[in-house]
């Protein structure tokens, strides 16, 4: 894949815009110079034409034609290639410059100033009509009182000046363009340095080293700050979930070790000496119980992993509508035995027809896990209340016990994997501390929330909100 460089692009853009600017400057300069020079040339042309016209006077004696003072024509102007022709209506040509070409014709009408070419040289010509003859005192009625003057002067000198101005501006622009490009390269390189610092800092991050502090230089750059901040928060979150996974793995290994140790010690102590068949049978039964315990733990961990996979949306499933109340009923039925053993009762108070899009077995597992906790912590003779109701656009299930409650500082921890309340009670109570974690992962997998409400001595309420299936 071709790589592109921000620096190269910035410099290229910079050079292109600067070059465009320089071209515009040259064009404007040339145009302006041309206009200025041309207007001064035009003024000059007019003055010279009038000057030539002023050289025409009436003859001293009647019957003679108009007189042109040839000797008074500016020799310098003629030398520079000026051409003129003075005509008078009804008389014809009064005077012509020496170099007037026969084929040159500047007809009446049209603009006063116009472009012509004489022998390949560009000229600017002016045709003035009805120029009064100044010599009025001697006016002769038989002769016309006005003249037509055509005056042309070569544009070579003007063009040369325009060209020179153009070259001058272009050269200056090029020099400045060069300087600005150098400055831009330097500035962009310097400006992008914080980006390199940021990349360097980020390259130090690894699974062992999560510390990432965006460099101060990057923090001070407005464009880089969001990037640096995003990197910081992203790394923080990554670190957290990495730690969580690592902790889970550590905890899982730790939790697995104990049942394995029990199983191993059971078998080893059984093998320590020859035993009676009754003893072997008792030992094997124990081993089987140990294995079942191990199996339960593994199953719990797998279920949690599976539920979390859904929660993170890696598995999409076709879900059907499930009646929430009936899943609660099934869960309660499954826990009757445990409740009886604890001399506790479970009561259900459910609205009918509350449907959620979920897997029925998963929901049942959520209720079982919540109820199991509630029943285990219930003092003898108390009741665990389960309420299913519609709440806004949610299905709300509340599992309430009259147990000892959870201290406020422990409340945020109860959903952590392998967390077991006050461990003095829970070991006797059993379980691996995975039930609530599984319940939470499952509820969240279906877009719901689970909120514990508890205070010491006042029992615990677990509130589960699930999105209703409205179709």
């Amino acid at each position, binding site marked *: 894949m071709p790589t592109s460089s921000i620096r190269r692009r910035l410099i290229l853009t910079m050079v292109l815009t600067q070059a465009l600017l320089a071209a515009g400057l040259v064009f404007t300069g040339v145009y302006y110079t041309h206009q200025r020079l041309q207007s001064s040339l035009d003024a000059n042309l007019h003055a010279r034409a009038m000057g030539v016209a002023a050289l025409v006077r009436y003859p001293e004696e009647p019957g003679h034609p108009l007189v042109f003072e040839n000797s008074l024509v500016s020799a310098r102007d003629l030398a520079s290639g000026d051409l003129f022709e003075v005509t008078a209506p009804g008389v014809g040509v009064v005077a012509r410059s020496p170099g007037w070409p026969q084929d040159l014709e500047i007809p009446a009408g049209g603009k006063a100033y116009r472009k012509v070419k004489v022998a390949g040289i560009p000229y600017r010509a002016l045709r003035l009509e009805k120029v009064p003859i100044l010599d009025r005192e001697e006016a002769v009625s038989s002769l016309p009182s006005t003249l037509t003057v055509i005056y042309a002067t070569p544009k070579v000198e003007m063009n040369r000046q325009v060209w020179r101005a153009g070259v001058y501006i272009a050269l200056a622009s090029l020099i400045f363009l060069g300087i600005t490009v150098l400055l831009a390269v330097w500035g962009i390189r310097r400006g992008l340095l914080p980006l390199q610092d940021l990349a360097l800092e980020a390259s130090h991050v690894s699974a062992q080293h999560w510390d990432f502090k965006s460099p101060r230089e990057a923090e001070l750059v407005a464009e880089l700050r969001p990037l640096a901040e995003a990197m910081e928060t992203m790394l923080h979150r990554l670190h957290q979930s990495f730690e969580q996974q690592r902790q889970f793995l550590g905890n899982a290994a730790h939790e697995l*070790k104990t049942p394995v*140790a029990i199983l*191993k*010690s059971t078998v*080893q*102590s059984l093998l320590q000496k020859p035993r009676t068949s009754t003893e072997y049978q008792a030992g094997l039964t124990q081993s089987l119980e140990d294995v079942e315990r191990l199996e339960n733990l593994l199953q719990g961990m797998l279920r949690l992993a599976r539920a979390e996979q859904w929660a993170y949306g890696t598995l999409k499933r076709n879900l059907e509508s499930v009646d929430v109340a009936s899943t609660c009923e099934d869960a309660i039925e499954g826990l009757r035995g445990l409740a009886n053993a604890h001399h506790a009762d479970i009561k259900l108070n459910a609205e009918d027809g509350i449907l959620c899009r979920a897997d029925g077995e998963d929901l049942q597992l959520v209720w079982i896990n919540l109820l199991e906790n509630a029943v285990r912590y219930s003092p003898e003779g108390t009741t665990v209340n389960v309420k299913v109701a519609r709440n806004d656009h949610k299905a709300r299930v509340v599992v309430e016990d009259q147990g000892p409650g959870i201290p406020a500082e422990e409340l945020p921890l109860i959903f952590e994997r392998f967390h077991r309340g006050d*461990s003095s009670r829970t070991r006797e109570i059993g379980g691996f501390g995975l039930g609530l974690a599984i319940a939470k992962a499952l509820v969240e997998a279906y877009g719901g929330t689970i909120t514990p409400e508890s205070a010491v001595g006042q029992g615990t309420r677990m509130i589960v909100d699930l999105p209703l299936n409205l179709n």
Partner: protein
Amino acid sequence: MRILIVEDEERLAANIARSFRESAGYAVDVAKDGEDGLFMAESNPYDAILLDLMLPRMDGGQVLRKLRASKQHTPVMVLTARDEKESVVALLNSGADDYLTKPFDLGELLARVKALIRRGKGQASPVLAVGDLQINTVDRTVRRNQRSIVLTAMEYRVLEYMAHRPRAVVSKTELLEHLYDYNWEKFSNVIEVYISGLRRKLNKGSAAPLIHTYRGQGYVLQP
């Protein structure tokens, strides 16, 4: 010998206890949580303590530090499910004598605890010798002058305990405390029965007496 197992997993504690009772002839007490364990360790003279780390009420590390702070020098074997280097080092530094990570081998646990007890009482060899008497603590056999002596379980336990502390006066109370677990009624006259039985078996074949009575104080095992 009498040991204390502080372990909240009842099944595991029971298995370890059974193994020590059957294979080593030890008296075994079990505590199910840290507080209980600390109380029992402080109120009974154990020869070794097996301590789990993850305990309800008070964790094993705390129990260990409190024991050591109250000048208890009973050997402590820590049973842990964690095997990170730091925690092991911290454990040993806070007074543990040895540790095993779960799941462990019962045979290894037995051997290590025996070694700890031996070392704690100043003995290096698993075969204890007092004069021409030899007590093998591994297979629990007793010989005198190459002659094998068959003892009852209780007689062996009395002899093994005394052989760990030769030349020291061992009172009847001490013997009772180290040979019976918490749940036994302790009658001091049973000790006299075992001692007389031991004397009879050890002195068979007109060897010099090994067990001497110090009236009002106790017994001494010495050649």
